[in-house]
């Protein structure tokens, strides 16, 4: 991490280590999940270095998984851009929320570096901290979370084919477990989100099997259903009071 020399060095170091401390459980969880992401990357034809790059610069389970399905199907670059945009759209919302936590005079470099690694979990611990955002806290968390995720992906690509098929099969659902962990608590507490999730399951299943619709690639299906269902949700059930707390309420990081 680039640490520029400015005053207040003492507290900055402490805050960095606080972030490091809070980042360790996140990094461990990342390591396990990214290992299975590596298996998906390998199936898409990536080598360990490419997997490392993908994970280092994206650090996104759903986004990378979606992107690997694009690579696997040799789809156009435009589809890659669209699917990444859709699968990672939530980070745009989180980035907006985090922008509210910065002090107005925060230098651009800090905004860029903090933005580099806004994930569900790091967003959670960032928002959970009281007071204005201290970028060194995020740098501490990133210092363990980023290697955990990207090295885990590379190792998944290396070791994925050393494991017996039954173990690979079992590990390959870990990522879906992570997706469920993100969506289900909110679906339980928010009736509209619950209905949207249920509709998503049903329509996704229908699109995968109905004649005509099943020709669509998985990526296109995801884009179309997301625009349709989230659009319907926003049109007919606009969110009344979208506060920061809502995002991290469900998971104590």
């Amino acid at each position, binding site marked *: 991490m680039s640490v520029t020399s400015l005053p207040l060095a003492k507290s900055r170091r402490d805050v960095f280590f606080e972030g490091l401390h809070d980042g360790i459980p996140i990094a461990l969880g990342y390591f396990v999940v990214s290992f299975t992401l590596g298996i998906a990357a390998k199936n898409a034809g990536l080598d360990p270095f490419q997997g490392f790059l993908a994970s280092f610069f994206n650090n996104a389970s759903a986004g990378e998984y979606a992107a690997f399905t694009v690579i696997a199907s040799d789809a156009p670059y435009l589809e890659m851009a669209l699917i990444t945009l859709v699968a990672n759209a*939530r980070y745009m919302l989180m980035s907006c929320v985090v922008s509210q936590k910065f002090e107005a005079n925060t230098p651009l470099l800090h905004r860029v570096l903090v933005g580099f690694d806004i994930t569900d979990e790091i967003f959670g611990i960032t928002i959970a901290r009281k007071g204005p955002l201290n970028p060194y806290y995020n740098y501490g968390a990133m210092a363990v979370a980023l290697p955990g995720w990207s090295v885990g992906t590379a190792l998944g690509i290396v070791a994925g084919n050393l494991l017996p098929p039954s173990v690979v099969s079992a590990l390959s*659902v870990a990522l879906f477990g992570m997706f469920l962990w993100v969506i289900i608590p909110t679906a339980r507490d928010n009736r509209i989100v619950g209905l949207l999730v249920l509709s998503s399951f049903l329509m996704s299943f229908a699109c995968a099997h109905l004649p005509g619709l099943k020709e669509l690639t998985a990526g296109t299906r995801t884009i179309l259903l997301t625009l349709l269902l989230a659009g319907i949700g926003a049109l007919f059930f606009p969110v009344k009071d979208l506060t920061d707390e809502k995002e991290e309420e469900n998971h104590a990081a």
Partner: protein
Amino acid sequence: MQHDIYSYLFVMSAVTLAIRILPLTLIRRQIKNRFLRSFLYYVPYVTLAVMTFPAIMDATQVPLAGLLALFTGIALSWYGASLFKVSAACCLTVFLVELVC
């Protein structure tokens, strides 16, 4: 393979970084448009749900194992289990079901 993997990586990384960094650097005030806010709020849930099912049944050797892992994951997340527990329980479900089937 017509497309280059490094070009794919460049496109995905550029889009992801733009998504993460641009709002943080450009927006200094909160988004007011209610439709946009609501849309962004709903997007992750729909996207993740669409990507989970039925794909989870194709990821495993036995489709039934994937389906049961889905139910396991939903149940544990519903009762507030941690990320690690939810993921581990899904894996264990698949392993055990495929052992029997």
